[in-house]
């Protein structure tokens, strides 16, 4: 029982953490352009940032 007292809150907190992270990702526009993300892997990154941050899109 004493193990459960630690493990259950830990499991719940981890779940809540995942949920909070998902909410953040949604608000941040991470799911706006899924096909584009797959294509952008192929680009040569010249390092000076050729796009604005995802979340800036209206």
């Amino acid at each position, binding site marked *: 029982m004493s193990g*459960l007292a630690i493990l259950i809150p830990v499991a719940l907190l981890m779940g809540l953490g995942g*949920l909070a992270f998902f*909410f953040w990702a949604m608000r941040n526009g991470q799911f706006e352009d*899924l096909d*584009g993300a797959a294509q952008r892997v192929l680009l040569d990154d010249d390092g000076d940032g*050729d*796009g604005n*941050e995802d979340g800036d899109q209206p």
Partner: protein
Amino acid sequence: MNAIAPISSDQSHMVVSRFAVPAIRCAGCIAKIENGLKDTPGILSSRVNFSTKQVAISHLPELDDDQLRRKIEALGFEAQVLADNPLSEEKGSTDKLIRALAVAGFGMMNIMLLSVSVWSGATGVTRDLFHWISALIAIPVIAYSGRPFFASAAMALRYGRTNMDVPISIGILLATGLSIYETATGGAHAYFDGAVMLLFFLLAGRVLDGMMRDRAREGISALLKQTAPGAMVLDDDGKTRWVAAKDLLPGMQMMVAAGESLAADGVILSGSSSFDCSLMTGESAPQPLGKGDLALAGTLNLSSPVTIEITATGEDTSVSDIARLMDEAGQRRSFYVRIADRAARFYAPAVHSLALLAFIFWMFAGAGWHQSLLISVAVLIITCPCALGLAVPAAQVVASGALLRKGVMVKDGSALERLAEADYVLFDKTGTLTLGRPTPVNLDDLSLTQKQVALALSQTSRHPISKAIRAGLLALGIELAVLDDTQELPGKGMTASWGGVKVTLGKPEKSGDHLSSQLSIGTDSVILQLQDEIRPEAPEAIAELRAMGLPAAIISGDNPQSVSLVSRALDLSAQADASPQDKVEAIARLTDDGHKVLMVGDGLNDGPALAAAHVSIAPGTASDVGQQAADAVFTSESLMPVALSVRVARRTMQIVHQNFALAIGYNIFAVPLALTGMVTPLIAAIAMSLSSLIVVGNALRLNGAAK
């Protein structure tokens, strides 16, 4: 790629403009556009959205949309300005559903974690503790994630009706209430897992449905309306002033320069010019209009300035008439009942009566109210349409995804259902069966110098023929010749001097039957022929439609000669000179004969017909009215997507029917178990997930349907 762009100037002054760029196809296009725009002064940053084929540009307010559009076109991509974020509201509803789904998923997994221990034999204090923790998770999760269902059920009940959400809400609330009672009294079974899992699967169905709608809406999105915002008005004292469209009055005289579109209907008082009326009539060739002729709002003045006395403004103009006609035509379609709702109409009362009967039976059998209620809740939970809720959206989402990859955007699920039922096709001509723009057909006859001069001459003209020549030459990668004093002579064409030699591009001296233009360099001259070409693969598409049992016909607002050219080439019957009203009536006639008409059209004049037809498709080049009225939009030049959409829609309905059969089969197996009181939470959980997975798996077979 997600690095924050360097902030070079005060960001608060930046404006964001969005453009639709349908030609984005690969990673190379992304790089080309983003890198190409990066170095332009005034542009802070640009971001391509590959899924929606859009570019968002953050720039200084000094740059206007037209300059930016030309900038993108200089990079080799056609672009159209998008109205300011027209979709935020609709997208919000899906976002809310996704949040509810995420919360339900979180709750389901954690409760399941505890339930598995109970099922594997936890007893006594441990079991009660786990039930209490489950209740602690389940109650807020159900309160949050259940809102979409509770709200819809409450709405239905308020109007004295019932829908699919009523048994769902009752089932969930009863199961939760009973489980809390069980937990408080230390009972053996709690149904928190079943209730939350039910929510999760049902929300998954709703999210799929909503995502499909959003995806297509984003792609189609309202293109900026091209009607003029106002006009220069000539006062009695000879002064001119700018008057906004809504303040224009009949009797005013407005001056319309070449290249402007008309803000109101009117009669030409002085001057003569050619007008692009394609938006209103579908006629492809520019119409010459002179003194005394009626010019309509929405048409584009092409060649020379005219003065027009206004006869009708605002809601009285012909454009508004079309809009009104469309509104009326669209209302008939809103009576269409989706297949899922038709199923729910039988399902909801059946489930309610079954649960009630089970309760009454067990009460009489002497099982006690507690045991009887438990059984009827089990019936409600296990019959609750997990598989039924997923049967339709899962199939439709997979099918629309497959179609999207082929360049067809379907607006919603009901469009697929109606598309599968269509048994007659009506095509508009200009822009639908044909590409809708004249294309030069004999550019190869020109020498390189001639091409360079022609490009330079066509560069500054707005005339559709010049535009077509320019587009054709740009596609060949021709460079500009350097010309001096370029002028546009109204009604004649372009003239300039090229190293001292007079060069012209304009109306041929001997006017031929079809569209043509004459290029002269000094005394040398050559005729450029243009044609509004038939879309590639049009005969194949029409043949395939015919093979599927959809005969086709043409209905066009263009003149009989141009229509007969196309109808003969494609071997179709045709009706020419059709007004928007005629098109609607033709559809009504076919509908009265028992046909379900698929209308394929693009122009503003097709709008009412697109709205009136059982289902409609528009090409991506269509006017915004056409795109909004249509159920689906295809972006490719080929006509094949029309046949493909019908084929995929029919396949989708097959899968939907299979899914219904699976869901009903599952109920035949599960309901007796529930009625006899043998359903424990474990069985309910397994049955629900299994049936949902089978239905989703079956729907996934549609992935390859659009080959």
